[in-house]
């Protein structure tokens, strides 16, 4: 099975990436090589093998639901590319 430029365009959309035609061609080729290499896993019998979800033997991690100090407005917005009235500014979503 090999993936096409069209598949790559679809995945790029899912990943929120805009690729140039050159990037699409290059990534299609490279992804095919990597996925072809990854095919070797399919030859391995994993019937009855549990997937690793965590390498350590930890189960759910809980903490008390206590109120703690949070970031100040200034700190939260310190790295904002654009802000207005104490909020992150984005282009209009509704017309």
């Amino acid at each position, binding site marked *: 099975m090999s*993936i096409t430029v069209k*598949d*790559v365009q679809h*995945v*790029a959309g*899912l*990943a*929120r*990436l*805009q*690729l140039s035609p050159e*990037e699409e061609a290059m*990534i299609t080729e*490279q*992804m095919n*090589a*990597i*996925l072809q*290499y*990854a095919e*070797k*896993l*399919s030859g*391995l019998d*994993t019937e009855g*093998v*549990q*997937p*690793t*979800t*965590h*390498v*350590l033997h*930890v189960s759910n*991690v809980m*903490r008390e639901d206590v109120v703690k100090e949070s*970031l100040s407005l200034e*700190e*939260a917005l*310190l*790295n*904002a*590319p*654009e802000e207005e009235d104490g909020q*992150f500014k*984005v*282009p*209009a*979503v509704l017309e």
Partner: protein
Amino acid sequence: MSLFQYRLSELHNMLHAGQTSVSELTEESLSAIARLDDKVNAFLTLNEDGARADARTLDDKLASGVSRGLLFGLPAGIKDNIVTKGLRTTCASRFLDNYQPIYDATVAAKLRQADAVTIGKLNMDEFAMGGSNENSAYGAVRNPWDLERVPGGSSGGSAAAVAAGEVFFALGSDTGGSIRQPASYCGVVGLKPTYGLVSRYGLVAFASSLDQIGPLTRTVEDSAYVLQAIAGYDAQDSTSAKVDIPDYLSALTGDIKGLRIAVPKEYLGEGVDASVRETVLSALKVLEDLGAVWEEVSLPHTEYAVATYYLLASSEASSNLARFDGVRYGVRVDEGGGLLDLYLNSRSRGFGPEVKRRIMLGTYALSSGYYDAYYLKAQKVRTLIKQDFDEVFKKYDVVIGPTAPTTAFKLGSQTEDPLTMYLNDILTIPVNLAGIPAVSIPCGFAEGLPVGLQIIGKEFDESTVLRVAHAYEQHTDYHKQRPQL
């Protein structure tokens, strides 16, 4: 005589005896960087004023006899994917070119508590993705042993800065070998601790189930010192392990009589350079002379590790890097086309080629219809790889092999072929998949370039890993050899 010839413990004693000062150490580090970093390109951001101010404060502390931390007065470099409050953190990405963290990573806070001095932030592969440090948006790091060669990746800046004598120790992060492989290429000591031993809070996530922070140092004893300062449970990291932290320094006895070493035949087979193999076999001879015994074993699923790793790491990366959207921090490219276009443009301009390639691979592996075939399958193979180690550790104390199949390669020689580049990590990746600790230490040279010996241990058994590494180091002088720059 340079202060860089001393171990951290010696410097500690010299500071206490008044033979040097924190300011003197800091100036030595800063002047080395001024002299060498044009060649090496290990630093992305210098904390010159901050480091000098901290040094003065610490010198005052010393004079007034206030209690002193484990890493008192020692100038350190920190890989630039570890956030440092008020000190620019870029992950070597255009995306975060002007990012000013508003908090300290737990390890950065621990260095501060231990009274270390932060000299600056170190170059790396963008978002820690790469095996050669050529994927930095700020230019490749160069190997101090041969400036035409790569330092290894992704903690290449950390390894090169230590090897070149720019800092007294550094922190790196290791997802598939990113501490050990550059340590091997640059002839320094690089330790990847057990997953969960060192908090990842404030480490910009690449592949969360594999990432682990660790020290790059010039000696094994130094490595134990730094690990002591950074290990420990952290409630802010939900994957942090609640285990007792032993005294790592007391493990460095030099005694390895009766130690049982497993040498996987897969680690010395095809694909490993003959010169690397010979060097590692000589190192095993040294360990044998010290009373250890070694036998060949098999880790039969080794050949599946690279494929497993790239599917899992890329999948986790695609998910982790979804947060880079140009809204709350980082690059924003707004060309007036609305919110979706803002995401698309910001991400497409902000990320470099390797990062895009891995996001694409991961998004594909997680996408509808392929999840079972790729992601879930890889998680099952991961279990088999971990079981290989479990089996061997029933009978042996450590697993030993080379860190990397070759010595450092020439800059630019593998950039066109990601798959070949990925295969450089074949000997380090299984350790991350299994979550266990491993160290790379210098064990000789092949054609003038350092070769790394990898010592792998059971989970949370850093003490044994360091004990073996230290015993070897006491009987060789490879770690004392320095590149001529």
